[in-house]
């Protein structure tokens, strides 16, 4: 087959689309659904700019083929906040973890994936689990601070 009907939940909403199969999840989000918060940097799994949470797991949407998301659940940066910003976004703003902002959607999604699994991550844990997200501007220090601050706000200080 060269087309497939995709029935997928994105940010809590159901979408049904019939699309050509030679399309990545990143392209599907940006071009079919119009969710352009997900950024395409390298298009080869290196930079993490396209990170979304797919069935609970952070993935590079530039290397996930669209056929696989049928029946699945995708969370993108647009789904992180409704009326108010998510605590991770608040914390990033507060500590200045954003400069040009191109990496930020991916950074926030990876941070969300970390805090979903580990409410009190150590610095080493954060470093290891953010290794797939590259930032050309900030030098990472404030991104790290932002994640730690968000963790404390969301889940309290580790005892």
């Amino acid at each position: 087959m060269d087309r497939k009907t995709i029935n997928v939940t994105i940010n809590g909403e159901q979408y049904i689309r019939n699309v050509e199969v030679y399309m990545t999840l990143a392209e599907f989000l940006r071009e079919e659904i119009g969710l352009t918060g997900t950024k395409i940097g390298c298009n080869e799994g290196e930079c993490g700019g396209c990170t979304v949470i797919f069935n609970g797991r952070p993935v590079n949407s530039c290397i996930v083929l669209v056929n696989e998301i049928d029946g699945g659940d995708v969370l993108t940066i647009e789904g992180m906040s409704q009326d108010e910003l998510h605590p991770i976004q608040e914390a990033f703003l507060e500590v200045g973890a954003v400069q040009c902002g191109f990496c930020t959607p991916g950074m926030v999604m990876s941070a969300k994936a970390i805090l979903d699994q580990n409410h009190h991550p150590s610095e080493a844990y954060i470093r290891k689990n953010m290794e797939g997200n590259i930032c050309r501007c900030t030098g990472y220090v404030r991104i790290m601070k932002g994640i730690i601050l968000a963790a404390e706000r969301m889940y309290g200080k580790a005892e």
Partner: protein
Amino acid sequence: MLPRFDLYEPKTIAEACALKKEHNGRILAGGTDVVIDMHGGKEFPVIIDIKGIEELETITEDENTITFGALTRHRTIEESVFFKKYYSALWDGCSQVGSVQIRHRGTLGGNICNAVPSADSIGPLQVFDAVCTVASPEGDREVALKDFFIGPKKTILGPDEILKSITIQKLKARSGSCYIKYGRRKAMDLALCGISCMIELDENDTIVKSRWSLTTAAPTSIRNYPPEEYLTGRNIKDVDLDELGKLAVKDAKPRSSWRSSAEFRIALLDEMAKRAYQNALSRALEAKTAPPLMSEETGFNVF
């Protein structure tokens, strides 16, 4: 957009094998190699996505072995306290593949079938005497992982065959293992070179079994026999680390490439062999009993 292709989503192994033969199709597992190739402009007229075949996802065990379905993800190994504690070399390898995002996608089967010399799971699997189960319409056959490759990017898989699972031997008490990867960066880098080892001690601290392998030191990941022969039957008091380092690089034939010269890789491997041995040894000395059943140790790694 990617180059056009026709997509198949088989639900059984038999179907996948038949499709592969009929269309000379490209198997798609996690896609972390295949989709990268496609983005690079490579055309695969037929893609066969095997992720719908549930049988390929499970990890099972019996008294002597553990069997990983070909679709086992690197991240699954990384998250498991069981593999970290008892099959440390495999954990060391899987937890250093690419990034978290890549490890959620990339599979053991894909790492093996892609058959590049830098694959981080192959060396570690070899020190546990891994055997591949290959499926075809005629049935299954077993091939030792060390015999699975015929050259870089070339495997023994026939036109109607897919890799079904990989089986490792369970360790005994007083066994330990280690994989060391050398990359220029700590993350998102391929191994400039890598070395794996496994040792098993008896109650008098004599090494009764030892397995070694090399990564990015030959056209494919290879078993490394000279250090095995040196260590087997030797008491740990009589192990000369300098001698061990020399033997560990005896069969290494790394290339010089833009990443590094062959001489540098040899110097690295010599030192890494000593460290890998010492890590494996301290793990063996801590392992008072044989590993429990996988189902008895279900912890999640929060390091």
